[in-house]
């Protein structure tokens, strides 16, 4: 099967499993992003048909929510908290360090495809600010040094 054929069959399975839930669109979008890492544009018509929505409506929902993405992410996505509590503990300086270490800005992916960087507005780890999340792993009291250590480890194990 071609890659796009297998994408389509994964998407169709997710749609079929979830489409009868009340308010099924977000669960479907989460299902697709969990499986693929993003929501491919070619999945939109199938979702729209299954839920009796227009493609524009589906696109509108995908684009409304910061978490949903329509391009493939890097191998690891780093969510760096920008909110007040983290700022109070040096988050602004950490943000500068992270961007220069990775050589990318928010919403970008490193050229080698290893890391995507996304801002997040609170991880609920405010008692251990500044905080970040990589995949499902959460980190507290992140410093420039501890960030570098985590990144180097992740790179080594990748």
């Amino acid at each position, binding site marked *: 099967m071609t890659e796009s054929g297998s994408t389509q069959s994964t998407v169709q399975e997710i749609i079929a499993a979830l489409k009868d839930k009340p308010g099924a669109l977000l669960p479907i979008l989460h299902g697709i992003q969990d499986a693929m890492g993003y929501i491919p544009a070619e999945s939109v018509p199938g979702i729209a048909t299954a839920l009796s929505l227009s493609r524009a409506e589906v696109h509108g929902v995908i684009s409304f929510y910061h*978490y949903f993405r329509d391009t493939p992410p890097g191998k690891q996505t780093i969510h760096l908290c920008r*909110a007040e509590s983290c700022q109070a503990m040096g988050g602004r300086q950490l943000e500068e360090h992270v961007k220069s270490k990775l050589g990318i800005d928010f919403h970008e992916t490193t050229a080698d495809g290893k890391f995507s960087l996304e801002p997040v507005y609170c991880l609920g780890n405010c008692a251990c600010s500044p905080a970040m999340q990589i995949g499902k792993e959460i980190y507290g009291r992140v410093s420039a040094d501890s960030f570098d250590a985590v990144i180097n480890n992740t790179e080594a194990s990748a």
Partner: protein
Amino acid sequence: MSITIYVPCDSSAVSLGADRVATAIAQEAEKRSIDIKLVRNGSRGMYWLEPLVEVATSKGRLAYGPVQPGDVSGLFDADFTQGGEHALSLGITEELDYFKKQQRLTFARIGKTDPASLTDYVENDGYRGLKNALSMTQAQIVQAVTDSGLRGRGGAAFPTGIKWKTVLNTVSPQKYIICNADEGDSGTFSDRMVMEGDPFVLIEGMTIAGLAVDATQGYIYLRIEYPHAFEVLNAAIATAYQAGYLGDNIQGSGKTFNLEVRLGAGAYVCGEETSLMESLEGKRGLVRFKPPLPAISGLFGQPTVVNNVISLASVPVILDKGGDYYRDFGMGRSRGTLPVQLAGNIKRPGLVELGFGLTLRELLYDFGGGAASGRPIRAVQVGGPLGAYLPDSQFDTPLDYEAFAAIWAVVGHGGIVVFDDTVNMAEMARYSMEFCKIESCGKCTPCRIGSTRGVEVMDDIINGRNLDKNIPLLRDLCDTLLNGSLCALGGMTPYPVLSALNHFPEDFGINAKATAA
């Protein structure tokens, strides 16, 4: 007999290495052939001591912390499984000042029990509220909640009992209970602690709400940023179904309540109840006009109770011990307890549950110990990104909804973010506008466009351009946002912006006299 050792599974503790500590303890115990039972409890909320390891002894639970994996073999050398002394010894956990001075009602079990264990929950007063509720009429349940004086802990502080009464009295074949678990305010983590540390209390509270108003379906709208809470809640819901605490015949009563967790997708505005319902319906999270109230026409057009995690998690203790018991805590019209969250630049960050009425100063210094940096505290933001910044001169304000309203501030969800004297308040005001710009749902023009203009005006002010014109322009813009927005995002962004300007004018390049507008 095996020795019980507790290592929190709370995600903040994990962010500081609790999982690695737990693994190290298990390995070391095996190596030394010591029979231990490792329990992954919730956090006690003393985060400067996390990972906080506890050992059950005849004297009570002894605490050691903060423990790192490298400390583990030393702890075993010191015979900590028998309560041996070590440099990290803290004494009896519940005798620690920070913990002992609290009044834990909603958080009674958190940190104490195994969140995954229904047995633990039931043995520690769990499901007593539901048991009582099952023998009461719907009107009696609603009355108990009304009598308790409980007001919405999400931030709006609307009386919970009145909301429930409206839903109860609205006739409809289908009603819903929604738990708003989209805890997006910076400086807050009490919802997360409940969901990760005592999920059954939320399930019980929602079940009681369902019984009270005739709602058979509940949804927990959980933010995507809380993956650990998602796992814990789903496991607890599955356990509750198996044990007959959810489903079609709750504890043999013939009553039905079903519950499902739904994930948000990183939109702050979806913590606003009407936007949340749009999102649950599978739409863009655009704010709805009110009326109609959600209690009359909410999710899928049906009567809906939307309550915050802490509100719902406070219901079981109210139904167990009575509305009067809960109401006897607190002050004025702020009844019961508030789980305060100390965050940001503070020496002893954590969760402090107490009856309303404590002053900010007591929280910041007696509990919090001052700024983590050792520098003076210059400003605190209370109530999340839409809450006002308060200077030292207002630190004697008691935590009370009305007292805060009187100084043009909000208690909100009880989060307190501390800043030391290195903070630039004009930068913080700019950030508030930027946050509003990023998170605006776009429905109201003042919020959608005003926030962008607000960032531009703040850039001008920060660069010292045309202050005579730009300061009044900023005030004017805030006035438009305040009065021309449907929800609190646009309507309250002026709180942090104007409070920063009014209390810290020097950071905006002007002297105090010039701000008297």
